C-alpha cells in the first residue's frame, strides 16, 4: 500500500518510542492499515442505508408542529386534511398506546416526561402534535398545512439563568423549578472534594471566568428516519438510521406496548450520526403508522427539521473559579454549570453526571467543588453529540487555563504540565488515576511547535512521581445540603414518589426548593397548578403497563449503597 503523504502539511506520525515497554505483543492483523470492510459498497453507491429499501405502496409521514415556544392545545381540527388527496390517516396522541416516555427510562434514569404526539400542551417551537400519513411526501405536506390547531400561547422561558429564577414559567410540572432532580434529593449534582473556600483564601491569585458553549447541530448528511412495514406472522420490520439498535427497539416496544419479539430492526449502515440519531423518535412513529394503515410507512426528517426540530448539542454555561499559587500550582477549582436541556430530559440528565465525573479536567487539584444543573427551557430538547457532557466543559476548562497561565506569567503548556495528572494520583471523583498520558501529549506538541520547555517539565513523565501525597484524599471535605428537593423517590436519580414503579400511576406532585419569597407563596407542598392536566388514568389490570417493554437495567442498579 502506498503511503503518499497528504498535501499541505497533513502528516501523521506514530511516536512508538512512548510507552513501548507497555506494548510487547506481536500482533498479526491489529495495527495494520487494512481497508474498511464497507469501502467497496461506499464507492459504488451500494451500501444499504435505511432509505435504500424500496417498498411498493410506501406511505409518507409528516408532522404538524407547534409554532409557539409554549402553548396549550385547545383543539386540533383534522377534518379538511382527512379529505385531501392521498391522505390515508391522521395520527394523534390518542393513537399512541403509551404516549409518554423519557429516553433513559430503559436505564431507570428519569421520569417519563415527553409525549410522542402532544395532546394538551406544547413546550417548544416545533413540537409535534399530529402526523399525516399520505401516499406521497408532497400530499403529506399539503395535508399538514390544512390541519388547524387552536393554540393558547403560554408564557415561556428560553434562557437557563432566567429559567431558574423565581417566578419563571415551569416548563414541566414534574420539575416545578425547571431543574432535574438528582438522587431524588438535590436539584443539581454535587462534587465536593476538600475545601475550596479555605484554599481560595490561601491562594496567591484567584482567577474567574464565564464560558458559553453554543448549541450545535450534528448535521449528518443522511437525515434521521425510519421505514416500517408489516412483516410476516404479526411482526413489524423497521429499517432505521438509529445509532443504537436495541435502544430504539426498546423504546418502540415500550411506546407501542408491544413485545420485542414482534419487532425486527435492521440498520447498522448509517450516514453519519455524531449523537443525533439516538433519540428513537422515528422508529415508534413509523411502526405506529404501519400498524394503523397496514402499509409500509416512512418517517424521515427533511433538512430543516434536522436542523431545528432534531435535538442539538445543548448549550452549556460554565462559571469557573481557580485558586492558584505564584508558582502555577492550582490549589482550588470551583464550577457552576448549567446544561440547557430544552423542553424535555432526553439525555441531558445523564450528561451532567458524566461531566461531574470528568471535573476538574486532567489535572491534580487538591480542592474541587462543583454544582451542575440540568435546566429545562422552552427550547428544542437537547441530546447527545460527539463528546457529550465533555466538549463544552473542556472548552471552559482549557480557555480558563489560558487565563490562569497569564495571571501567573507562565507559558500555557508549562502550566498544564505542572498541574497534569499522573499515574497514582487521586482524582476528584475519589478514584486513583492510571494509564495517564497527558504529560507526553503536551511534550510532543511542544516539541513539534518549537516551544522550549523548562528542563524539569520536559523531563516529567506520567509514570513517575505520581501517587504518594498526591494519592491522599483531602483531610476534610466541606459538604452541604443546598438545593434539597422533596417528593422524589430517594433511591434513584429522579423518580416520582409513586407507590408503584410505573410513572403512569397517579402520585402527588414533587416539590423543588421554594422559590424566593418575592415569588409569592412558598411552593413547599403547593397544590398542583390549576392548569396542570389531570394525571392519566392508571392502567387497567388487563394490560399491565410493563408488558413488552425492554429494560436494560434493574431498578436496584441505581440504588445507593
Amino acid at each position, binding site marked *: *500500500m*502506498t503511503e*503518499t503523504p*497528504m*498535501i*499541505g502539511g*497533513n502528516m501523521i506520525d506514530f511516536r512508538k518510542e512512548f510507552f513501548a515497554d507497555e506494548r510487547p505483543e506481536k500482533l498479526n492483523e491489529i495495527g495494520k492499515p487494512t*481497508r*474498511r470492510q*464497507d*469501502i*467497496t*459498497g*461506499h*464507492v*459504488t*453507491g*451500494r*451500501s444499504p*442505508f435505511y*432509505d*435504500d429499501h*424500496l417498498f411498493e405502496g410506501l406511505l409518507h409521514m409528516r408532522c404538524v408542529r407547534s409554532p409557539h415556544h409554549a402553548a396549550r392545545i385547545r383543539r386540533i381540527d383534522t377534518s379538511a386534511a382527512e379529505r385531501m388527496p392521498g391522505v390515508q390517516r391522521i395520527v394523534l396522541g390518542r393513537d399512541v398506546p403509551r404516549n409518554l416516555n423519557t429516553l433513559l427510562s430503559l436505564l431507570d434514569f428519569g421520569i417519563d416526561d415527553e409525549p410522542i404526539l402532544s395532546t394538551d400542551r406544547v413546550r417548544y417551537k416545533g413540537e409535534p402534535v399530529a402526523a399525516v400519513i399520505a401516499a*406521497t411526501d*408532497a400530499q403529506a405536506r399539503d395535508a399538514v398545512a390544512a390541519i388547524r390547531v387552536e393554540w393558547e400561547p403560554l408564557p415561556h422561558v428560553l434562557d437557563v439563568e432566567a429559567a431558574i429564577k423565581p417566578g419563571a414559567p415551569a416548563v414541566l410540572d414534574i420539575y416545578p423549578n425547571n431543574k432535574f432532580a438528582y438522587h431524588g434529593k438535590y436539584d443539581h449534582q454535587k462534587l465536593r472534594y476538600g475545601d475550596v473556600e479555605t484554599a481560595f483564601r490561601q491562594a496567591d491569585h484567584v482567577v474567574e471566568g464565564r464560558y458559553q458553549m453554543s448549541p450545535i447541530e450534528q*448535521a*449528518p*448528511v*443522511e*437525515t434521521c428516519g425510519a421505514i416500517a412495514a408489516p412483516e410476516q406472522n404479526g411482526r413489524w420490520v423497521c429499517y432505521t438510521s438509529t445509532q443504537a439498535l436495541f435502544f430504539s427497539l426498546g423504546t418502540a416496544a415500550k411506546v407501542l406496548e408491544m413485545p420485542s419479539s414482534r419487532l425486527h430492526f435492521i440498520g447498522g*449502515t*448509517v*450516514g*453519519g450520526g*455524531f449523537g443525533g440519531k439516538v433519540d428513537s423518535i422515528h422508529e415508534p412513529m413509523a411502526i405506529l403508522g404501519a400498524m394503523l394503515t397496514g402499509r409500509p410507512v416512512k418517517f424521515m426528517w*427533511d*433538512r430543516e427539521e434536522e436542523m431545528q426540530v432534531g435535538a442539538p448539542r445543548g448549550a452549556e454555561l460554565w462559571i469557573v473559579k481557580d485558586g492558584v499559587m505564584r508558582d502555577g500550582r492550582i490549589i482550588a477549582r470551583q464550577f457552576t454549570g448549567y446544561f440547557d436541556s430544552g423542553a424535555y430530559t432526553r439525555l441531558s440528565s445523564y450528561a451532567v453526571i458524566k461531566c461531574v465525573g470528568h471535573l476538574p479536567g486532567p489535572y491534580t487539584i487538591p480542592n474541587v467543588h462543583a454544582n451542575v444543573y440540568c435546566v429545562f427551557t422552552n427550547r428544542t430538547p437537547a441530546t447527545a453529540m460527539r463528546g457529550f457532557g465533555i466538549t463544552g466543559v473542556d472548552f471552559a476548562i482549557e480557555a480558563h487555563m489560558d487565563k490562569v497561565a497569564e495571571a501567573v506569567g507562565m507559558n500555557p503548556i508549562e502550566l498544564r504540565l505542572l498541574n497534569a495528572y499522573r499515574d497514582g494520583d487521586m482524582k476528584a471523583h475519589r478514584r486513583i488515576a492510571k494509564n495517564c498520558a497527558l504529560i507526553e501529549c503536551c511534550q510532543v506538541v511542544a516539541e513539534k511547535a518549537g516551544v522550549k520547555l523548562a528542563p524539569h517539565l520536559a523531563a516529567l513523565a506520567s509514570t513517575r512521581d505520581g501517587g504518594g501525597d498526591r494519592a491522599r484524599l483531602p483531610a476534610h471535605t466541606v459538604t452541604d445540603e443546598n438545593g434539597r428537593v422533596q417528593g422524589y423517590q430517594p433511591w434513584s436519580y429522579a423518580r416520582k414518589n409513586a407507590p408503584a414503579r410505573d410513572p403512569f400511576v397517579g402520585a402527588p406532585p414533587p416539590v423543588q426548593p421554594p422559590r424566593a419569597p418575592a415569588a409569592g407563596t412558598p411552593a413547599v407542598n403547593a397544590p398542583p397548578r390549576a392548569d396542570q392536566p389531570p394525571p392519566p388514568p392508571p392502567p387497567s389490570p388487563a394490560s399491565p403497563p410493563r408488558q413488552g417493554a425492554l429494560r436494560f437495567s434493574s431498578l436496584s442498579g441505581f440504588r445507593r449503597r
Partner: protein
Amino acid sequence: MALKPVTFTLNGNAKAAFTEDGQNLLDFLRRSVGDLSPKYGCGQGGCGACTVLMDGAPVLACLTLAEAAQGARIETAAGLAGAALHPLQEAFMERFAAQCGYCTPGMLMAARALLDRNPRPSRDEVIEAISGNICRCTGYEPIIAAILDVAEGRVRA
C-alpha cells in the same frame, strides 16, 4: 395526477419510466427507476449528495425536474465502475476518503465531472469542484488527496 413518460440513458443503458407532476430527478431515479446511488441529504441543493451527471455536467438531482431527463444521458455513481473500478473509486479506497459513505456517490460524480473536463486540475480546482458537496466525517483532506492522486497519475484503473 398526470403521468409522463421519460426516456433517457442511465449509465449507458436505455431506460423509460413514468414521472409524476413535479417529481424531482432524485426521487425519480431512486424510486421510479431503482438507482439508489444518488442520496437525499437536504432536498435544498445544499449538500451535493444527490449529484449526478446530465449530458456530462454535474447537476443536483433534488433540484432538477425528472422531465428534464427526457432524452438526456444520465450518469450516476452506480455506473462509475465498468468491469474494473474507476480510478476515482480506487483512489477513494486507497486514501480512506470515505467514512459513513453517504456523501461519497455525489462526491465521486462531482470529481468525475471535473476530471472529464480538466484531467490535470490543480488543488484549487479540485476544491472548487467539490465545494458544493458536504462531507461531515472526513474533513475533506483525504477526498482532495484522492482526486489529486487520479489527476496526477498516481492511481490508474
